[in-house]
């Protein structure tokens, strides 16, 4: 039931692009994306809801394929501050729970 994130880790040079994927075997109501830096709290990036609604920060781009139950987070022109572990959380219909993936560790090098 846990969503599968890929890749598990990625190393980029500053300015390069990355795509992080999240895939579920269950029909989803929404997908949430958070970034967590070591020893810190997860920070909200974006929510994508069934039907196409999105809520998030302007500089973050993501997609949600409802048919495939897949979401992708697009990080363009990466900055050093983008480093951290990215988690997707999936919400099923009429359910308060978020089921989280294992995370994708992103390392940005200057």
């Amino acid at each position: 039931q846990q969503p599968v994130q890929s890749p598990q880790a990625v190393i980029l040079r500053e300015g390069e692009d990355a795509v992080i994927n999240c895939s579920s075997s269950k029909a989803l109501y929404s997908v949430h994306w958070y970034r967590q830096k070591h020893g810190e709290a997860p920070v909200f990036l974006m929510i994508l809801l069934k039907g196409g609604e999105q809520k998030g920060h302007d500089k973050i781009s993501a997609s949600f394929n409802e048919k495939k139950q897949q979401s992708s987070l697009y990080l363009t022109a990466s900055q050093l501050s983008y480093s951290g572990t990215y988690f997707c959380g999936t919400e099923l219909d009429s359910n308060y729970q978020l089921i989280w993936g294992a995370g994708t560790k992103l390392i940005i090098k200057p």
Partner: protein
Amino acid sequence: GAGVSQSPRYKVAKRGQDVALRCDPISGHVSLFWYQQALGQGPEFLTYFQNEAQLDKSGLPSDRFFAERPEGSVSTLKIQRTQQEDSAVYLCASSSPGRASYEQYFGPGTRLTVT
């Protein structure tokens, strides 16, 4: 404005001891979530409150875990007779509307180590 705060930040307990972890959500936030995060893993849902009502406690791993939010604001997660497998970071998050489909604001977590 103040964010979500948690205390203590670090707790070391001997196996068998009881612990209480506190969460102060953002004022006015209706929803409150508790998560358990093992090292290198994503958060795992423990329980959910809407105001003072505990609407979902399906994630609590055993009857040693108990959570309350008596006045709809501060919440306490209590773990009785702690075991080594309880060692983890316990995260609290709050949200304004009454379901998960909105931004959750996380506290810094309490790192529990059971020796």
